[in-house]
C-alpha cells in the first residue's frame, strides 16, 4: 500500500503539478483574483447587509420596512451595486503591483475609463442614473476587467518607451511621475471615449426598450450566454473538480478557480440580488460546499480527535479551532490530504457529491438560492441561513451535506489510520531495539 502511494505521488508531481502550476501562476488571473478579494469583496459584503435589512425574511418585518425599502437600498446600490467600478480600480492596481510599477495612477485612471465606457455619449444632464446603474455593477464586470488590464499595460509600456515626457533630473520625482502619466492618460481617454461614441451612435433593445448602446451593454450580449453556461451543473462540476485537483497537489484551489470564475459568479449573484434564480455563485462553493474548509473536511477533524494514530490526534487538536472558521490547512497538509493518493479520492469525491446534491436542491427550489456574500470564515449553520437571505433550510442543507461528508470520509479515514498506526508502531519498535538510524513518520 505504502509503495503504491509513493509511486503515485511521484506521478502527480511529474504530470499533474506542472500544468496546474502554470495556470495558477498566470499574472492576469492573479490580478483579477486579488481585485475581487481585496478591493470589491469588503464592499460587497457590507452592502449585502443592507440588502438583508431591506428584504427581511419574516413577513411582519417585511411589512414594517416596505415604506423605507428604497432608502435602505441606497447604501446597497452604491456599494454592491457599483462593484464593477471598484473592480476596474482593483484590477489595474493589482496588476501594476505584479508588474512592479506605480499602482495608484493606473487604478484611478481605470475607474475614469470605466465610467467613460459605461455612460452613453449624450447630454449627460438628461441621463437618469438608474438607467446606467446596472452596468456599473453586476453587468459591467467584464468591461471593468478588460479596462483594468489595458490601463496598466498601456501605462507600463509608455513608461518604458520614448513616447514619454522627460524632465530634467532636478525636478522632484512626484512631478516627473505626473508628467510621465500625461500622454498615456490622454490617449487612453481619447481611445475609450471615441470607441464609446461610436458604439453609442447605435441603439439596442434591452428588456423591450430601445436604449443607446454602450460598451457594457454590447459586451453583455457576448457575455450573457457564457454566464448562462457557467450557471449549470456541468460547469459547477468542472469547477469543483479543478478546485479539488489543485488542492490535491497542495495548491490553493479555491484561489485559482476564483480568478477564472469570479466574473461569472458575481454577475449571477448580482442578478440573484434583484430577483434572479442563479445557482453557481461564490457562496455555492464557499458556504455550501467547503464545510470546514476546502474538501468539506469538518468530519475528519472530529474523527482525528479520537484517532489511534498519534499523528492524526496531534493534527486533529490543531485543526479543530481553524475548522470552526472553515480554515483547513492543518488538515490538508497534516493528515495529509495533499499528494496522498488514498485521501485524495474522498477529497475530490466528497465535494463533488455535495455540489451535486446542492445543485439539484437549489434547482428545484427546495432552498432559496444564495443572494448574500459573507466572509468564508462565518461558521457552518449561521452562514447557510445568511447566504440564502434568511432561509433556515439553508442551514439544514449544510448539516445534511455534513452528514454525507462524514459517511464518505469514514472508510478512507480508517484505512489511512491503519497505515499510520502501523508506521508508528514500526517506528517505536525500531527505537526500542535502538537502531541508530533516525526514523521519522513518512508522509505519503
Amino acid at each position: 500500500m505504502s509503495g503504491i502511494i509513493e509511486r503515485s505521488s511521484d506521478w502527480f508531481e511529474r504530470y499533474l503539478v506542472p500544468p496546474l502550476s502554470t495556470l495558477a501562476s498566470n499574472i492576469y488571473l492573479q490580478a483579477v483574483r486579488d481585485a475581487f478579494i481585496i478591493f470589491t469583496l469588503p464592499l460587497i459584503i457590507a452592502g449585502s447587509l443592507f440588502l438583508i435589512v431591506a428584504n427581511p425574511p419574516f413577513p411582519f418585518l417585511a411589512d414594517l420596512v416596505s415604506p423605507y425599502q428604497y432608502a435602505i437600498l441606497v447604501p446597497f446600490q452604491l456599494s454592491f451595486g457599483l462593484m464593477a467600478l471598484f473592480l476596474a480600480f482593483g484590477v489595474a492596481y493589482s496588476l501594476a503591483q505584479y508588474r512592479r510599477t506605480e499602482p495608484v495612477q493606473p487604478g484611478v485612471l481605470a475607474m475614469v475609463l470605466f465610467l467613460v465606457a459605461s455612460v452613453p455619449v449624450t447630454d449627460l444632464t438628461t441621463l437618469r442614473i438608474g438607467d446606467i446603474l446596472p452596468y456599473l455593477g453586476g453587468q459591467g464586470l467584464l468591461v471593468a476587467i478588460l479596462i483594468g488590464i489595458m490601463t496598466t499595460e498601456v501605462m507600463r509600456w509608455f513608461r518604458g518607451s520614448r513616447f514619454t515626457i522627460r524632465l530634467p533630473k532636478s525636478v522632484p520625482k512626484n512631478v516627473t511621475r505626473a508628467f510621465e502619466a500625461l500622454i498615456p492618460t490622454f490617449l487612453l481617454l481619447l481611445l475609450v471615449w471615441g470607441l464609446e461614441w461610436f458604439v453609442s451612435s447605435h441603439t439596442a433593445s434591452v428588456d423591450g426598450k430601445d436604449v443607446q448602446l454602450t460598451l457594457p451593454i454590447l459586451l453583455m450580449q457576448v457575455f450573457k450566454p457564457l454566464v448562462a453556461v457557467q450557471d449549470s451543473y456541468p460547469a459547477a462540476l468542472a469547477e469543483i473538480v479543478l478546485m479539488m485537483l489543485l488542492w490535491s497537489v497542495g495548491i490553493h484551489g479555491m484561489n485559482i478557480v476564483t480568478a477564472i470564475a469570479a466574473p461569472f459568479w458575481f454577475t449571477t449573484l448580482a442578478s440573484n440580488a434583484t430577483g434572479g434564480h442563479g445557482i453557481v455563485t461564490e457562496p455555492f462553493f464557499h458556504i455550501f460546499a467547503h464545510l470546514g474548509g476546502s474538501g468539506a473536511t469538518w468530519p475528519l477533524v472530529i474523527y482525528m480527535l479520537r484517532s489511534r494514530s498519534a499523528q492524526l490526534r496531534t493534527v486533529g487538536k490543531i485543526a479543530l479551532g481553524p475548522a470552526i472558521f472553515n480554515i483547513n490547512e492543518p488538515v490538508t497538509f497534516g493528515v495529509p490530504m495533499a499528494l496522498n493518493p488514498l485521501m485524495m479520492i474522498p477529497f475530490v469525491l466528497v465535494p463533488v457529491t455535495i455540489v451535486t446534491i446542492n445543485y439539484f436542491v437549489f434547482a428545484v427550489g427546495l432552498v432559496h438560492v444564495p443572494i448574500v456574500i459573507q466572509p468564508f470564515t462565518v461558521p457552518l449553520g449561521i452562514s447557510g441561513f445568511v447566504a440564502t437571505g434568511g432561509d433556515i433550510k439553508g442551514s439544514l442543507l449544510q448539516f445534511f451535506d455534513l452528514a454525507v461528508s462524514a459517511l464518505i470520509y469514514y472508510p478512507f479515514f480508517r484505512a489511512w489510520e491503519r497505515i499510520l498506526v502501523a508506521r508508528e508502531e514500526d517506528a517505536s519498535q525500531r527505537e526500542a531495539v535502538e537502531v541508530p538510524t533516525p526514523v521519522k513518520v513518512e508522509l505519503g
Partner: protein
Amino acid sequence: MIRVLIVCSWGMSTSLLVDSMLAAAQEYQYELIVEALSAGEYLEKVEACDVVLIAPQIRHLRKSIEKLASSVGKPVAMIEPFHYATMNGRAVLEQVLRLLPRNTQEGKTAT
C-alpha cells in the same frame, strides 16, 4: 532583530503560524517581526526583510518568488508542509535561523 516575510495566499491560516512563531521567538529571546502577505502584496516588502518563506499552498509561485528574493540577495525557502499544518512555530523559527547569514544573526543581539 529578524524580519521574516511569509508569502501565502490570503493570510488566514498563516496568521496562526505567525502567532506560534512569535511565541517561540519570545521563548528563545529573539527579536522577531513576521509579516504574512499575499503573492500580490509581498513584492514591495522583499527588500525590507531578512528571510522570505513560502507557504506550501502557493508552491506554484515558488520559482518566481525565489527569483525575486535572490535578485535582492534574500534567503528564501518553502515551509515544510507538516510544520505548516501543525502550526509548529518553533520548527519554522529554527528554519529561519538556519537560513540567516551569520552576520545578521550576530547583528540582532546588538539591536
